[in-house]
């Protein structure tokens, strides 16, 4: 698992080097491209800000009212069987529906448990290996007016479940829990 940690340290500098070399080789005006892209990134963040405010307030409500804790406690016996942290269940479900709502829950977990705790690391890995299935499916199928989606949803849910369980075991192995 040393290799995995080395890879984590290496990938971002590696990607930077590769992109800069490829840009210079193809005579791209790299600094201009960079600033243009950075403006796009700026717009993306500003664009998600209103959504994030709305959803973080909603998650704050769920947390402060005790509803989130009640849900976790109710689920604890079932999730305990495979060593799945019950606090992560609302996040795992929300992840399928909306990426901004799940970001709200994710940040709440980081704040209450710390990003470097087992739970914090596990949910980080889980978020990397799952996708907003319901949202993506409805956008793509609606765009071409396909209503019979056949086995798409079943397969996507199985894949996401595999990603969640995989994330649990990989986090345990990678960080030695």
């Amino acid at each position, binding site marked *: 698992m040393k*290799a*995995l940690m080395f890879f*984590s*340290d290496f*990938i971002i500098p590696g990607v*930077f080097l590769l*992109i800069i070399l*490829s840009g210079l080789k193809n005579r791209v005006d*790299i600094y201009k*491209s*960079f600033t*243009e*892209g950075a*403006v796009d*990134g*700026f717009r993306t*963040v*500003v664009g998600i800000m209103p959504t994030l*405010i*709305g959803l*973080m*307030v*909603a998650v704050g409500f*769920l947390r*402060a*009212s*005790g*509803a989130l804790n009640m849900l976790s406690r109710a689920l604890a016996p079932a999730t305990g069987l495979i060593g799945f942290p019950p606090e992560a269940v609302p996040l795992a479900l929300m992840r399928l*529906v*909306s990426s901004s709502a799940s*970001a709200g829950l*994710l940040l709440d977990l*980081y*704040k209450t448990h*710390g*990003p470097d705790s087992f739970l*914090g*690391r596990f949910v980080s*890995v889980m*978020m*990397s*290996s*799952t*996708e*907003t299935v319901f949202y*993506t499916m409805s956008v*793509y*199928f609606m*765009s071409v*007016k*396909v*209503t019979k989606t*056949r*086995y*798409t949803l079943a397969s996507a849910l*199985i*894949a*996401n479940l595999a990603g969640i369980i995989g*994330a649990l075991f990989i986090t345990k192995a*990678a960080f030695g829990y």
Partner: protein
Amino acid sequence: MLNFVWGFMIIVGVVAAAFTGSLNPLTNAAVSSAQDAVSLCVKMLGIIAMWSGMMKIAEDSGLVPALAGKMSPLLRFLFPNLPPGGPAVKYISANFIANILGIGWAATPAGLKAMEELQKLNPRKDAATKSMCMFLIFNMSSLQLVSVNIIAYRAECGSKNPAEIIGAGLLATLVSTAAAVLCAKIFEALAPEERS
């Protein structure tokens, strides 16, 4: 969808708070969460803008199209029914590469074009073809190599090493993508051929 989710979250929060007698913490939570959201966005701006800038160079230098070209053996395996080199395959590979690199704004337009092209090849316009199912299942299996957002969130919440989860995240992504392909191929073999 979000209307119901969001509305539901707020209603549950208020009702639960009324029962547990924590209406005052609820008010404080509303104020502090809204502030947190803004400070988070401000802190994320730097990381996301930096990454988008790098990805723009990758796009302009032809790295992204070159990577898309390298995907053709995989695409032949995933989409045996599609003409290789056709527009559908071209948009699908652009969508996959954009997803892998985490450039969301490039992924969605290419993905919608891919669906449009797949629909042209569809004999029955209301039902998904096997290629459409495979495209979406693969797409929704999480392809992103580096989750920059997650790293930004971790950094903002005081992680000592925000990037430490990249390797584990990548491995978990491989697990979900492998499960997606396996599952889609099994269903594909069981499903009847599409007819008009």
